[in-house]
């Protein structure tokens, strides 16, 4: 068994930390991480709870393969009810924190209540205690991590924490670990902030030793690592270019949401692409990209380490940003760049650093700026209100708005509400490019039809990581499907959703699935965890997790009308590119998807479905 079989339950109101045994019956049905933490959450909270109330809980959870030599085995998830959406929130992160938590002997940390003053949780193996964090409140992520390491006199302590945005209730505040890896979406950081919880600092020296079949595990993980190395995406594309490998690809197929989804191609895409990050700059002759970095145990290493141009207007007087730092990922480059028509690569690097430094989701933030710029161009928002002239394409506006959002100052407070609330406030709810209140990521639902259904039905609001059909519709993995048609997409989306739910519950990274099928992951789980972990069982588990999340959302008040896309994507056709003339066929796909799911036409799982899944 690769679980530690121990949960740490922390009550912030009572200031207690208690160890309890992991419910192994649940572990067998929900594996770990996303699935298992969600099972705990939905069993313990009222679905209608205010996400920022003490009655909400927030869970840090590892998977059975976290902290092992399985490639990418370093993931952890943060699960709670999200304030941006009011739906289930599950954000996962890499870096080194997840493995360290497992090494300290914990599968999961469940946080309850609210502390009367700022605290952080310190974990050293089985010793867990709440410590005063008054002196850390108001500090950035980077300052917090530095200070905790210094106070603990231990450079090896790993920190998962919030920045100022989490404290200030920015509804898409993230939880950041290892300086620039984030449980990024749905505002999990705001939940931590609402509880006066600044950070979890962990040092684990116990390791993971309870592998069911160690010899087989070493053999099979070694074989599977070879597959990752030999695959063009995981062996070459991602290590060399990172996720930014997609910038030119997605732009060429006309699925690049541009200027708040008014366009589907961005004329400046090349200037902010992976290739551009590799090219020497005019100013100093150096490339922005320094090298790539892996998360714990990852043999792909897609992470970017970059250095900003020291002469750029954003940092010329701020040497603290001159060092190497987390670089642009595709989603951030899109949201900060294409969504706003900004093609200044250095400005985007600056903005992405601020998102890391103060812990907020660049996708939701960037997409919200897209809406701000559209409202500005319409004359609804003025320079006086925003604080700067903010037309599409203005890098100065983007970086200024990033700064005031990081500090929650002035108009930054309104940006921190996300596009849905912001657009409603200014009388144009139709301009929020979101589902269930969460902003779209970097693929236009007109140019890649399956992604429209992915967004509409994602349990945590619009998200690409719940069923990344780009793999099939664009990259041909495992089989090529036509991105322009809705045909077959409900089945494709369902299959991806269920498989991804298993990956997200294992401790592994979903990026492995560019090269691995679930059948490549299954033997790794089988070797690590005792008992039967057949494909049939995992398939059913994925579906069970999906339906459990859905039930929670339904009970929270979501209905069929929430499984929809903004009017723009359904009525304003793509103007150029392969998808020219097309709108999203979401209305055609939903009924078929519900049928395939075994749900009624209101989107509720039928009794048969629930009993088949053991829910």
């Amino acid at each position: 068994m690769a679980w530690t079989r121990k949960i740490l339950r922390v009550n912030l109101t009572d200031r207690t930390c208690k160890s309890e045994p992991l419910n192994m019956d649940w572990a067998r049905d929900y594996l770990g991480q996303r699935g298992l933490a969600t099972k705990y959450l939905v069993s313990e909270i009222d679905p209608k709870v205010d996400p920022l109330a003490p009655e909400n809980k927030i869970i840090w959870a590892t998977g059975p393969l976290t902290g092992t030599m399985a490639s990418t085995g370093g993931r952890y998830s943060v699960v709670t009810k999200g304030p941006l959406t009011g739906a289930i929130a599950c954000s996962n992160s890499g870096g080194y924190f997840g493995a360290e938590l497992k090494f300290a002997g914990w599968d999961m940390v469940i946080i309850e209540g609210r502390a009367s003053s700022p605290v952080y949780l310190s974990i050293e193996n089985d010793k867990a205690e709440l410590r005063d964090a008054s002196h850390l409140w108001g500090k950035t992520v980077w300052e917090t991590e530095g200070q905790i390491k210094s106070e603990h006199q231990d450079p090896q302590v790993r920190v998962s924490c919030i920045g100022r945005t989490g404290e200030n209730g920015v509804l898409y505040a993230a939880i950041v670990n290892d300086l620039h890896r984030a449980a990024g979406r749905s505002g999990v950081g705001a939940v931590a902030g609402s509880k006066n919880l600044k950070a979890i600092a962990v040092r684990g020296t116990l390791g993971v030793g309870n592998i069911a079949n160690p010899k087989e595990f070493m053999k099979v993980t070694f074989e599977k690592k070879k597959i990752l190395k030999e695959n063009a995406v995981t062996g070459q594309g991602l290590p060399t270019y990172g996720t930014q490998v997609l910038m030119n690809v997605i732009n060429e197929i006309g699925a690049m949401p541009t200027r708040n989804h008014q366009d589907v191609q961005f004329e400046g895409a090349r200037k902010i692409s992976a290739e551009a990050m590799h090219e020497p700059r005019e100013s100093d002759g150096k490339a922005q990209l320094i090298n790539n970095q892996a998360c714990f145990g990852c043999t792909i290493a897609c992470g970017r380490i970059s250095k900003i141009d020291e002469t750029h207007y954003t940092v010329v007087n701020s040497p603290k940003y001159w060092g190497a730092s987390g670089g642009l990922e595709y989603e951030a480059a899109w949201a900060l760049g294409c969504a706003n028509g900004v093609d200044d690569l250095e400005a985007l690097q600056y903005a992405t650093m601020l998102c890391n430094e103060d812990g907020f989701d660049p996708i939701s933030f960037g997409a919200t700026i897209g809406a701000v710029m559209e409202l500005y161009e319409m004359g609804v928002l003025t320079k006086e209100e925003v604080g700067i002239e903010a037309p599409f394409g203005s890098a100065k506006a983007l970086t200024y708005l990033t700064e005031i959002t990081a500090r929650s100052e002035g108009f930054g407070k309104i940006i921190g509400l996300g596009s849905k609330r912001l657009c409603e406030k200014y009388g144009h709810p139709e301009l929020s490019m979101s589902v269930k209140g969460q902003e779209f990521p970097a693929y236009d639902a007109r140019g890649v039809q399956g992604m429209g259904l992915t967004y509409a039905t994602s349990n945590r609001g619009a998200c690409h990581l719940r069923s990344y059909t780009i793999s099939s519709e664009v990259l041909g993995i495992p089989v090529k499907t036509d991105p322009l048609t809705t045909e077959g997409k409900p089945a494709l989306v369902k299959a991806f959703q269920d498989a991804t739910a298993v990956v997200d519950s294992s401790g592994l990274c979903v990026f492995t699935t560019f090269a691995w099928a679930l059948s490549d992951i299954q033997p790794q789980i089988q070797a690590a965890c005792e008992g039967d972990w057949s494909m049939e069982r995992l398939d059913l588990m994925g579906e069970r997790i999906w339906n459990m999340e859905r039930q929670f959302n339904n009970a929270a008040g979501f209905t069929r009308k929430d499984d929809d896309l903004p009017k723009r994507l359904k009525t304003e056709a793509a103007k150029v590119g392969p998808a020219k003339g097309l709108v999203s066929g979401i209305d055609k796909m939903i009924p078929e998807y519900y049928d395939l799911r075994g749900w009624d036409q209101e989107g509720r799982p039928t009794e048969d479905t629930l009993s088949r899944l053991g829910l």
Partner: protein
Amino acid sequence: MQKSLHIDPSKCTSCLQCEMACSFENYGVFNNSLSRIKVFDFHHSGAKVPYTCTQCDEAWCMHACPVEAIKLDKDNGAKVVLEDVCVGCKVCTIACPFGTVNYVAETGKVQKCDLCGGDPACAEACPTGAITYVDANWTGLERMRQWADKLGNQTA
């Protein structure tokens, strides 16, 4: 032929597969804190550097040990800690100029890289070739080859 570990930091991604392979080989557990090789991640520069014992010929640790608990493995040149002889006095940890022999509180003994008896698990696990196990007399061979390539194939 004697072989030695060769480290090329420019290829390291800090995935820590080497550390886990080391702890698993020696203790049967994935536990980076027990690894004899360590990867250092220098955030400010982006450099990531694996570091471990280089098996000095005139090994300070071996000479300093008062109970002769560190022995030469003649097959591969490794300086090996004999756990049943080591008394945990830590003098070797002071003598080593590089810090690569360390005390393990849990066992009361010191530990250092022993080249896994001639088949180092870290080199096998490294996915990028940052850690290789090569002819000790020719650790510079790959770098020479790169320059030779430049000289012979890339000059105009």
